[in-house]
Structures are given as structure tokens and as C-alpha cells.
């Protein structure tokens, strides 16, 4: 029997979160400016952006930790500015930091959080056992969590965020500072939770992670939303540009420039033995065109490869 980890999304409408013109100022500094976005129920929604872009401020506003200066936002169907307590009982948060008590065991930590959510003792006990099994630290349930590894702490933090069966789970850079193995486990766990119907809002710096995990991604830069869509849609932003990586047997700058003209390269970069050519030409035929050219010129070719744009390229493109 599958274990339930989330509450049923019982709000009306298809959106878990709706932001309209959300703005937050600190004095004269605008941290988030006129943010419009909607998060669908049941999706994993990624928030990307360089440091200081306004991701964390946005998350804080949506989780009622910060008030909204202008605009309005609905979370789980409730207005953030007026229904703080209601929202808090419907959302779960996995903060950047451990944000639990090192001195307490996982069970004690969960008990404390559960009591603050107003859960009954039996309910807390049942959910704690369930969740600790799901995140895989059930056998450590009676050991003070101060000695846990980063990964184990984060798993406990996820369990704490899910304890009261929230509709939406906010995860603020949950994999930052974890080893690759723990990242993988946590990512799988997130996926698993989402599969059971919980909406997840996920912020990260890891493009690959976002690419693999998120259904949709919002990219923020300088307090504004600069891109929004599925990873595929975002990559499409860069559909005009691709990079060809070439490795030749010997150096011949003149020949390389000639080849560049052939494929209408917009720029040519030299990175050690590798030549990077950027072009807006369609991918099809590029490789064969270049191979033939070098063959004619009696130049030995080690490798010719066309690179499609990554999410990181998109990120760099939209945030530069």
C-alpha cells in the first residue's frame, strides 16, 4: 500500500500559487518587482536565479514570513496578506538551513513541530514513523540529530516539512552543500513526494537538478522574473544558437577562420586544443560540411560535435 505523504489539494481552481504584481521593497531597495506567476497544483516548480535575484524573498512572501509590499498572492487558495495562519497550516517548508534542534532526536524534533501545528500525540507518532521510514532515517529516530550528516539532517528537515500533510512543500535550496549521493537521494525523494500529488516549489542553483526535476522553471534576475516555462521551453529561447566543438590534429588559425566563414560562425573561441564556433545556422549538415572542408584541406580532425543549448546557457543568456 502506498504511503500518503501529502494532504489532498482541496482548494478550488487549478493553481496552488498565484502571484499578481507581487513587489517587496526594503527601504528604497526593491527585492522583488511586479512578479506575476502561477504554480499549478501537483507540479514541481523550480525557482532559479543568481544570488540576490529575489528568489528567497519571493519564497518568504509566499510562506508568510515576509509581508508583500504591493500586489497580491494566493497560496493554496488563500490570500497571503489576510490568511497567514491558514496558509501556514497548508504549506510545508524545508529551509536552506537545518532549522531544527541539534540537541533533539528526530522523533523529538518532529514531536515539537507537530505540537506547534496542533497535531495530536498519536497523529504525530504515526506520521513521524511513516515519514522517517520514507526519508530513510527511521533507525536513527532516537539519536540526537546534532551528529547527523548534512544529508541526514536534510532528510529530517523534509520529514518535518511534511509532518502536517501540507498541500504545498517549499524547498529552499535543499541540496546545497550535500554530497552527490545525498543530492541524488533527496532528488528521488522529491520526485516520489510529487508523484503522490504534492505541489513542490523548489529553489536551486543546480541547473542540471532543476532540469531533471522541475516541471516548470521560473528564472529571476535583478528582482524580476526573466523567464518562465518547462525546461524544454526555456531551451527553445536559445533555439537560434548552437555551439560546434572542434578538435584538430594541429593548429592552423587561418584554416579555422576559413571554416568559420563556411558555416557563418558568429564567433570563434579557442579553449586549449578545442575550438568553439557559435552559429545560428540549423544543426543539420553542419558536421558533414565541416568534415568535408577539413578533409579537402588535408587537416586531420579528432572530433567535431554540435552542442545543443543547456539550461545553464539559457540561464546565462537571460541573466547576463
Amino acid at each position, binding site marked *: 500500500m502506498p504511503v*500518503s505523504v501529502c*494532504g*489532498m489539494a482541496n482548494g478550488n481552481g487549478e493553481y496552488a500559487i498565484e502571484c499578481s504584481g507581487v513587489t517587496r521593497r*526594503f527601504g528604497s531597495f526593491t527585492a522583488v518587482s511586479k512578479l506575476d506567476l502561477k504554480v499549478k497544483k501537483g507540479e514541481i516548480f523550480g525557482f532559479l536565479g543568481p544570488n540576490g535575484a529575489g528568489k528567497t524573498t519571493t519564497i*518568504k512572501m509566499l*510562506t*508568510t*514570513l*515576509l*509581508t508583500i509590499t504591493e500586489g497580491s498572492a494566493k497560496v493554496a487558495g488563500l490570500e497571503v496578506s489576510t*490568511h497567514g*495562519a*491558514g496558509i*501556514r*497550516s*497548508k*504549506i*510545508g*517548508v524545508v*529551509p*536552506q*538551513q*537545518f*532549522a*531544527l*534542534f541539534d*540537541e*533533539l532526536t528526530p522523533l*523529538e524534533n518532529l514531536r*515539537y*513541530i507537530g*505540537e*506547534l*501545528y*496542533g*497535531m*495530536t500525540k498519536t*497523529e504525530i507518532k*504515526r*506520521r513521524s514513523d511513516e515519514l522517517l521510514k520514507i526519508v530513510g532515517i527511521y533507525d536513527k529516530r532516537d539519536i*540526537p540529530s546534532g551528529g547527523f550528516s548534512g544529508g541526514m539532517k536534510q532528510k529530517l528537515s523534509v520529514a*518535518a516539512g511534511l509532518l*502536517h*500533510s501540507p498541500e504545498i512543500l517549499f524547498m529552499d535550496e535543499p541540496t546545497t552543500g550535500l554530497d552527490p549521493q545525498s543530492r541524488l537521494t533527496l532528488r528521488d525523494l522529491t520526485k516520489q513526494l510529487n508523484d503522490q500529488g504534492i505541489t513542490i516549489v523548489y529553489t536551486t542553483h543546480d541547473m542540471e537538478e532543476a532540469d531533471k526535476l522541475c516541471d516548470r522553471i521560473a528564472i529571476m534576475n535583478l528582482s524580476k522574473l526573466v523567464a518562465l516555462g518547462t525546461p524544454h521551453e526555456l531551451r527553445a529561447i536559445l533555439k537560434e544558437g548552437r555551439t560546434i566543438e572542434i578538435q584538430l590534429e594541429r593548429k592552423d588559425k587561418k584554416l579555422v577562420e576559413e571554416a568559420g566563414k563556411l558555416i557563418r560562425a558568429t564567433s570563434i573561441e579557442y579553449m586549449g586544443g578545442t575550438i568553439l564556433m557559435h552559429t545560428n545556422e540549423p544543426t543539420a549538415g553542419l558536421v558533414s560540411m565541416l568534415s568535408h572542408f577539413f578533409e579537402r584541406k588535408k587537416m586531420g580532425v579528432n572530433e567535431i560535435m554540435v552542442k545543443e543549448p543547456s539550461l545553464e546557457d539559457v540561464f546565462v543568456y537571460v541573466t547576463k
Partner: protein
Amino acid sequence: MAKIKGDHEKERVLDFSKMISIVWKNWLVMSRDKFRLAMLLLFPILMIAIFGYTSGVTPKYIPAAIVDYDHSNMSRMIMNKLYANQLFIIKYQVSSQDEGKKLIDEGQVKALFILPNGLQDAIISGQNPKIYAIFDQSDPTVAQITQASTQVFVQQLSQGMAQQRIVSAESSVASAQRDLSAAKQTMTIVMDSQAVESTMSAANSNYRDAIYTSSQLTSGLSSTTQTLRNSVAYILDSDQNQIVATSGNSFADANAAMYALSSIDSKSPTIAQIAAYQGIIGGVSKITSDTNKLYASTTAVAAASAAKDAAVSAAYSRVSSADKKLSETMSQLSATSSSQLSFSALQPYGVHTGIDFIIPSMLAMTIFQGASSGLGREIAGEKKEGSLTRVFMTPTSNTTIIVGTQLFYILLEIVRAVILLFVAMVLFGVTMKGSFLDMIPVLVVYVMGAVGIGMVLSVLTSSQEQYMALSMLITLPTMFLSGVFLPIQTMPPALQSVAKILPITYAADAFRGIMIKGFGIAAVMPDLIWLMAFCLITMSLSVILFKRELV
């Protein structure tokens, strides 16, 4: 499907069961950190031990040196007294001030006493004799104590000398009294005028007797003479008419008659008789005149004697008055010498040692320090580590979070206060005159106020480091102005007025009242009211300032 109890659309302003959870969590966190817990509970014990063993101890055996420039009996006497004194231990007797100063510089002695040349003369002549001293000023506390001890010593010394003077004055007065008393006795004899008076009155009566006798005699003789003369006149008349009739009262006439008679032989015996009478009358008259003279002389003597008498009597009354004054002086002197004014403290509140007075202040200080730093530190730490964020994410009101957290610290501080009191009672026999039940409301209100300060400070800071810096800024001056280390009365007026608004001052006052004076809660009500105001202010401020927003 998990069900959550209750309706989370609303959060109660004061949720008691959540407050209990917060207390429980805080206790677990604290109890798991054994070192911190031990420090928290040991701190009051440590404090009380340090204060208990260091306060109220009078200094003894301060190492000192002495230089005697006077070389007199008096200076030797003073030196002996210094040697015998327990305040100082005279380690060196040096020959010059410079030598002594060197000992101070080397740290060998803390004080150098200088008995200057001419000390004895000054003492004897009653000028202001002075003993000089140099103190090691490198340690102001020691210098202060040494100076105070010297003051005490010199006071004792000068009292002793005054005592000696009084004793010698007493003996002089006694001898003067003896002289006066002898003089009085002599005068009494002189003034005993009975003899002169009776002599005078005897003289008077003798005089009257003599005058009377002589007048009787004169009149008797006169009449006899007249009779004789009449008979002679008759004889003359019959013999010859030569006799001049006379009244016969004049001696001249009588003499003339006598002369005439002398020529008449026949009548000569009678005439001779008359002449003889006449002679006797003359003698009597002479005696009368002499008696009169004698009387006048006697009267003059009597007058002189009376004047002398009056003078002696006046002298006597002066001597008496002098004697009276001397006896008064004497009784004052003996009262002074026999009854030295001494000081004896009455103990209406029972017998107390120094620590009894320190404990209430210390209690107030420890609580303030603990309450204002412990909670705020915790909050600031949770803020930084994010666990406060996690709590904020739950449907729990600010007030519940604040009061719940404070509740734990209130309980903790009360436990610490009880430990402090217990240790003070066991280790130092501190007495608790009032009721511990009366202490509870003061403790609770004060702790709440102090915890409120911690809460306010934690709002103003974003990390434990910042918090510690800020709380130091508040707790350190508070500690020094609390009267634990220094009496408030000795502070400059400006600082005194600061001390007068500090809650710690009022808490200490209330604790002192209950613990030492045995006051009930009513008697410490003014303090309690002030503390309540303080509590209300800090609690309201903490609720107002404590924002959920964590930037």
C-alpha cells in the same frame, strides 16, 4: 490521510498547550547540553562562594615598614603599638623614608609609617602631632584598605593618649580639691565669730555696769558732798559771814569752800572729809571718762572685726563655688575616663553577617544576568540557525512563542534563585527571615521583566555575537550599579540616579526586605509595583517589537 486536530485557519493568541511544548523543547535542548546546564546551575553557586568568602572580611596583617626620626619614648611607644597591632605586620624598621619607599616599590610592604622628628614634643605641648604614612598606590583597593586601617590605628592611638591625659587631669583636679578643702576648713575657723561677738556683748554689758556703778557712785558721793557742804556752809554761816552761799554743785565752789574751810581748824575734819569725797568724785569722773574711751575703742574693734568677717565670708563662698566646679570637672573627667563612648549595633532584624546583605543584591544580579542573556541568546541563535523560521512556519501566534519561551526562562531562573538561596543558607548560614512564598511574586515579576529585556535585545540583533555584545552593554553597567560591588551611596549623584531607575535596585531592595527584615509582601509593595511596571514595559515592548518577518 493524516488529519490535523483543530481548525488552522485561526491561531489562538495564547495557546497554552503550545506554550508547554515550547517549555518542553527548551528544557530538552538545555538538558542535552550538559556543560551549559552545569554552568547555568553552577554559576549562582560560584558567585555566592566568591562573594561569600571575599566580602565582609576585615584586612589583617598588612605588611608595613616603619621609620623613626624622633627616637623618643613616645615614638617607641607608638612603634610598640604598631608592632602589637593586628592590622599591620611590621616587617622592617628602616632608617630613612627613601629606604622605606624602596621597599614599597619592590612590593615588600604595602605601607610605610614615618614618625617625624619632634613628635613627642608636639604631643606633650599639645600641638597637633602627626604621623605620616606612604601607601602602595599600585593597587588602589589595597591602598584604600590600608589607609582605612591606618586611620583606625591612629584613632585608637590618639584615643589612648587622650585617655592618659584625662587620667592625669583627674589627679590634678583631685589634688586641687584637697587644697581647697583645707582652705575652707581654715576659713571656717576664722569665720566662727562667736568669740568676738560674746566678748563684745560682755564688754557692752560691763560698760553699762561700769557707767551705772559710776553714776550711782557719783550721785551718792555728790549728795553726801552736798550734805557735808551744807553742814559746812551752816558752820561758816554761824562763824563768819564770809561764806558765799552756793548751790554747791561746782567743784570750783567746793574747792573754794574747801579752801575757806581749811582755814577754820575746828571744822577741818569735815572739810577734809569733803575734800576727800571731792577727790573721789574726781576719780570716778576720770574712770567714767576712761570707760567711755574704752567703750569707743571696743566698738571700733568690733566694727573692724565685722568687716573682716564679711570679707572672709565672701572668700569662703568663692572657694566653695570653686570647689563645686572642681567636683563637677572631676565627675566629668572620671565619667570620661571610666566610660569610653562605644558603639554597639542593635539587631532588631536579628544577627546578620555581611553575606546576608549581599545575597539579595546578588540574587537580583544573577537573575538579571541570567534572564536577560539566556533567553535572548537562545532567540538570537534560533533566529540565525533558522529554527525560529521553522516555528514561524507553524500556525503559532507571536505571543504564544514569546510567552512560551519566557515561561521556560522564568521557571529556570526561579530554580536558579532557589539554588542560590539554598547554597547561601547551607554554606554561609544566610538567614531567611521572611517567607519564601512572599519571594515568589517578586521573583516572578522581576524575572519576567528581565526576560523581557532579553527578548527586546534579541529583536534588535540578528546573531548571538551581536546579542552578547549588546547585552554586555546593558548587563555590565547594571551589575556595577546594582550595589553588589560598590555601595550605591558612594557613587556620584548622576550614577545614583541611574541606579535608582534600575529594576535590579528595586528587586534587591524587595529581596532584602523579605529576607533580612522579614517583611511581608505588603511592605515591599512599592518595589513590587515598580517591578510590575518594568515587567509590563519590557513584555509589551517585546510583543510589539517581535516581528515574524525575518529578513
